[in-house]
Every structure is written in structure tokens, then in C-alpha cells.
């Protein structure tokens, strides 16, 4: 992988900062799965948090070094059709939340609750000190689902009240 990256870097007239950074990461011993998610993170962005089909999970704290926002868009069958993330933190945190958004798509809101930090950590071959990043990603998924469920429940309660008033 290192030789492919250095070839990429060498073939450009101006060395790409991203390519150079990735080369440095590989040399430092990051697994290629992490580098892949760091260089080409999936699903970066935002969904409309006011949309009632969107659940937003915000976890972490800047003082601790990691903040993750993970959002899910859920259809009428409770299936997650879209997911976006924005993460402030280290490469492992970015990769963990990127993986999380990939894994929740196409699954039901209940199914994704069984996504474990250990699955993310082993997929990315995270070193011991970075297991906390994958835990945060698991927490972010749960927070997003919780937010969507609360919004959905609130919606139902409002409808019932309106029906009673109309009757």
C-alpha cells in the first residue's frame, strides 16, 4: 500500500497534501481500513435535524478531544435510508463514525442498536488506546436512534390530542 501511495504522490507535480498525509499514516502503522476512511470518508455532511424522519446523535465533548454528530434518515418502515456524520477528532474517531454511517444504512432502527464498538474496532484494527473512539461511534448510533424514537413518539402524541379535540 505504501508503494502505491508514494507512486501517486510522485506522479503529481505538486504533492497532494492528502496523499502525503496518508503516506505518513501508513508509515506510523495505521491499518489501511482506517486510512481509507480517513482519506475517503463516507457520508460526511448533515441532514435536516428538524425533519421528523431524521434522528440526530451528538456525543462526546471538545475537551475530551472527540465530538461526533451522527444523523439517520428513517423511512415509514423504520428502515434507515440515509446517514451522515461530522466528527471532530482523531483519525480513528473519524474512521469509526464513517464506518458507523455505512453500517446503519439499509438496517432497521432496532437492528442498528446491536452494532457493537468491538465490531467497529476489529474492522479498523484499532489500537488499544483508540477503542474509546469506536465506543463513541456506538454511542452516536444509539443517540441518533433514541432521538428519532423520541421525535416519532412526540409526533404520535400530538396527533392523538388533535383528534380528541376535533371529536
Amino acid at each position, binding site marked *: 500500500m505504501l508503494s502505491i501511495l508514494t507512486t501517486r504522490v510522485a506522479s503529481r507535480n505538486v504533492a497532494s497534501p492528502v496523499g502525503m498525509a496518508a503516506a505518513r499514516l501508513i508509515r506510523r502503522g495505521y491499518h489501511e481500513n482506517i486510512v481509507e476512511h480517513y482519506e475517503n470518508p463516507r457520508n460526511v455532511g448533515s441532514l435536516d435535524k428538524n425533519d421528523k424522519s431524521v434522528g440526530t446523535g451528538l456525543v462526546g*465533548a471538545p*475537551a*475530551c478531544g472527540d465530538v461526533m454528530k451522527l444523523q439517520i434518515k428513517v423511512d415509514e418502515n423504520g428502515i434507515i435510508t440515509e446517514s451522515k456524520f461530522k466528527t471532530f477528532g482523531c483519525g480513528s474517531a473519524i474512521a469509526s463514525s464513517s464506518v458507523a454511517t455505512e453500517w446503519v444504512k439499509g438496517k432497521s432502527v432496532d437492528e442498528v442498536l446491536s452494532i457493537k*464498538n*468491538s465490531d467497529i*474496532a476489529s474492522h479498523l484494527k484499532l489500537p*488499544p*488506546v483508540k*477503542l*474509546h473512539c*469506536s*465506543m463513541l461511534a456506538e454511542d452516536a448510533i444509539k443517540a441518533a436512534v433514541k432521538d428519532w424514537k423520541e421525535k416519532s413518539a412526540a409526533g404520535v402524541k400530538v396527533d392523538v390530542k388533535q383528534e380528541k379535540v376535533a371529536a
Partner: protein
Amino acid sequence: MQHNQIRLFETEAEFHNVADEALETIQDTVDEMLEPKNIDYEINLASGVLTLKMRPHGTWVLNKQTPNRQIWWSSPLSGPKRFEFDPKDKLWFSTKDGLNLGRTLMQEIHHVYPEVTKRDLEL
């Protein structure tokens, strides 16, 4: 929960005192337990980070997480945990499973090396 934690320690210095003592006690206890048994292990404590290698299982990392006054734990057996200090019991409790740090560590050392007797580690 975070705000309560910060109030428990009146100053950051107090957190460092208590947490440093915990990590140093762990280092001393592990050395006392494993060294005489000729076990191939490695323990290092520097800059508030304790690294314990117990082959072939892997590496345990404990570190001070100063902003939220916690001790963070990473284990190849149980994954990541966070421990918060209870000033009444003077023990660090896991936010995940409520076990205290001393017992958590002893259980895992005993799991890796059944021949090593567990100690009562009051942490």
C-alpha cells in the same frame, strides 16, 4: 454526570493526586503479583498513561482523562470502559457495569493467569 464529577474534586490538582495514586498502586500491585511468578509481562507508567502487556492477550491501557475527571480503561478482553471516583467509598466505579477498578483488573489478570491469586485491590 460530568458536572458532578468536576465538583467532586475541588481542584484539578486533587483529581491528579487521586488518579496518579491509583495508577501507581496498580503498577506496584501488578509487579508484586506477576514478577515473582516469572511471567512474561510488561508494565509502564508515564505521563498519566499506564500500559500493561500480558501476552498473548494483548495490551491494556489505563489513562487519566482530566477534562471529565475519569480514568479510561482499554482491555483486549472487555474493551473500553470509563471509571469515576466515588469519594464515599474511595473507589473508582465503571460507568458501564458498576464494577470497581480494582476488581475489574484483578478479574482480568486472573483470567489471563489463573495461577495468580487475586488480591483485594481497593481501587
